[in-house]
């Protein structure tokens, strides 16, 4: 998204000459059509969430509804402990986002502002760590959590997610930390700032847009996760998260489509909001601080 905004700032001169007008109109029509197709599943999700039961389970589905209702949402929110699930999801996501952003900031600073032995090795290891199939580690993590008595607690979701979002966050933040000119660091020290002061009062605010960008990704992967929630929260469902609340409505033989669509809508909206909020933040951040 960052890139998009950068690109749009710099108007590209049209390569085409005037003779190509019809071609461009066709391309634009195609683009609009594709946009409609791509957006259709989301439209259908929200629409179905508001449809009355009779219209959802109809063999003549219509792309509109004349009798919107909140029945499906009532079923979702009326579910036992739904608020609890939502809160759990928020707690886990926020904890992961904050913790991984801070830890990654320190680590990214270490690997970009210092030269030391094993630096390259470490970087390669961070890269390799990104490729580890998280799902395969569910088995050993299950035993680790069991041995530490953390099954059925939110820690069993928070800790692994911090670990899995770190390598990517470090890798990504590197670019942002690197882009802060070294002259600034020198100036700060000359003015008598301590290392800690430079780190938290100068570097941190400058890198914040990058941190926000990183947080989108750790937020999404944590918010969406249902494998850990399914595997580690086995008996105490009051510690469960949103995806599990959604799956309650989804019984393969006879799914409650209205409930599924309403729960999906509830689950998707925070992510969309986060995307939009962060995008604005990113644009201003990249436009200002990081440019040198």
């Amino acid at each position, binding site marked *: 998204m960052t*890139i998009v905004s*950068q*690109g749009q700032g710099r108007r*590209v*001169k049209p*390569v*085409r000459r005037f003779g190509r007008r019809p071609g461009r109109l066709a391309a*634009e029509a195609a*683009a*609009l059509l*594709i*946009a409609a197709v*791509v*957006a259709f*599943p989301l439209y*259908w999700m929200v629409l179905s969430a508001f449809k009355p039961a009779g219209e959802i389970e*109809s063999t003549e*589905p219509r792309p509109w509804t004349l009798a919107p209702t909140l029945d499906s949402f009532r079923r979702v929110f009326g579910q036992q402990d739904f608020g609890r699930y939502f809160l759990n999801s928020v707690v886990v996501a926020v904890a992961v986002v904050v913790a991984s952003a801070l*830890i*990654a900031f320190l680590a990214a*600073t*270490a690997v970009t502002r*210092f030269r030391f032995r094993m630096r390259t090795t470490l970087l390669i290891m961070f890269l390799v*760590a990104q490729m*580890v*199939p*998280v*799902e*395969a*580690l*569910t*088995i*050993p*993590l299950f035993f680790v959590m069991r041995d530490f008595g953390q099954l059925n607690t939110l820690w069993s979701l928070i800790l692994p997610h911090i670990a*899995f979002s*770190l*390598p990517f966050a470090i890798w*990504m933040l590197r*670019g942002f930390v*690197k*882009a802060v000119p*070294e*002259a600034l*660091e*020198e100036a700060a020290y000359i003015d008598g700032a301590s290392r800690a002061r430079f780190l938290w009062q100068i570097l941190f605010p400058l890198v914040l847009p990058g941190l926000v*960008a990183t947080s989108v990704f750790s937020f999404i*992967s944590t918010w*969406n996760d*249902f*494998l850990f929630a399914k595997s580690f929260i086995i008996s105490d469902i009051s510690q469960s998260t949103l995806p599990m609340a*959604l799956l309650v409505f989804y019984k393969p033989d006879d*799914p409650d*489509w209205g409930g599924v*669509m309403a729960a999906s*809508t509830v689950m*998707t909206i925070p*992510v*969309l909001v986060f995307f939009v909020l962060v995008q604005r933040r990113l644009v201003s951040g*990249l436009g200002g601080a990081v440019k*040198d």
Partner: protein
Amino acid sequence: MTVPTDSGVLERRRVRGAHGPSRPRGGGRAPGKALRPLHAPAGTPWLYLAPALVVLGGLLAYPIYQLGLISLFHYTQAQVSGGEATTFEGLGNYAELFRDDQFWQVLLATVVFAAACVISTLAVGCTLAVLLTRIRAVPRLALMLAALGAWATPAITGSTVWLFLFDADFGPVNRVLGLGDHSWTYGRFNAFFLVLLEVVWCSFPFVMVTVYAGIRSVPSEVLEAAALDGASQWRIWRSVLAPMLRPILVVVTIQSVIWDFKVFTQIYVMTNGGGIAGQNLVLNVYAYQKAFASSQYSLGAAIGVVMLLILLAVTLVYLRLLRRQGEEL
């Protein structure tokens, strides 16, 4: 997920361009190095790295080690509950796995499915990226917003929505296509195809946005010159854009390979845990089912190790390509 990495790459390249070819790896002349002895003791970077290393060591490296260990033992429900002692099996689990026809079938399905996903995602993403460059702001914004929406949709909600769209009884797709009550989840290829559609839907935006940004960074003079020389659209893409975008295409391809090889949620939700008689299993779901559904933890762990090794091989190829492009770490 890596867009920002790419933006990082672009950003860095831009910055480096502005500074001229600076190569901090070249030793003591880099200003960063000159600073260190003045202001920081040698241990400082390690102090900064400590939290990250502790977390990664405890929750990534140690579980990987455990995964390898479990795959060498006989480990089922009896051992988990402590009823029986664990016995060392050596490579016995792997031998059992490699003798199992279903494993090879699942491996083949995983590779073919991942390849199909990667190729479709790249084709759709690149085509739309090129399309984005030839249209005005309003349709471009529409397509971009739709793509961002698909991108932001959680895998699990995306899966249920697509399933509903293609539902045999109540889905709009069968009505529009006039397919009656054709079931998309019954046949093996139908089910894989449906999952593929969902995977492409939620992963093409990443490719599109990244490649679009890449095309934007190509100087327009180059494209103009090619157009003036009478090159066709396809020719411009193949002989001008693709070579210039190679670094970005490499990142996007490798990233897609890694994701699509690891697809879990979509298969698990859309085919209800691997399809009828496991016909839609991929390695990831297979390992999970072996471990948590049939309590054969050691077999599941062995499958996990196989996946890990395959992805490691992909990563090594990635690193080589990065190195060859002179991308400094």
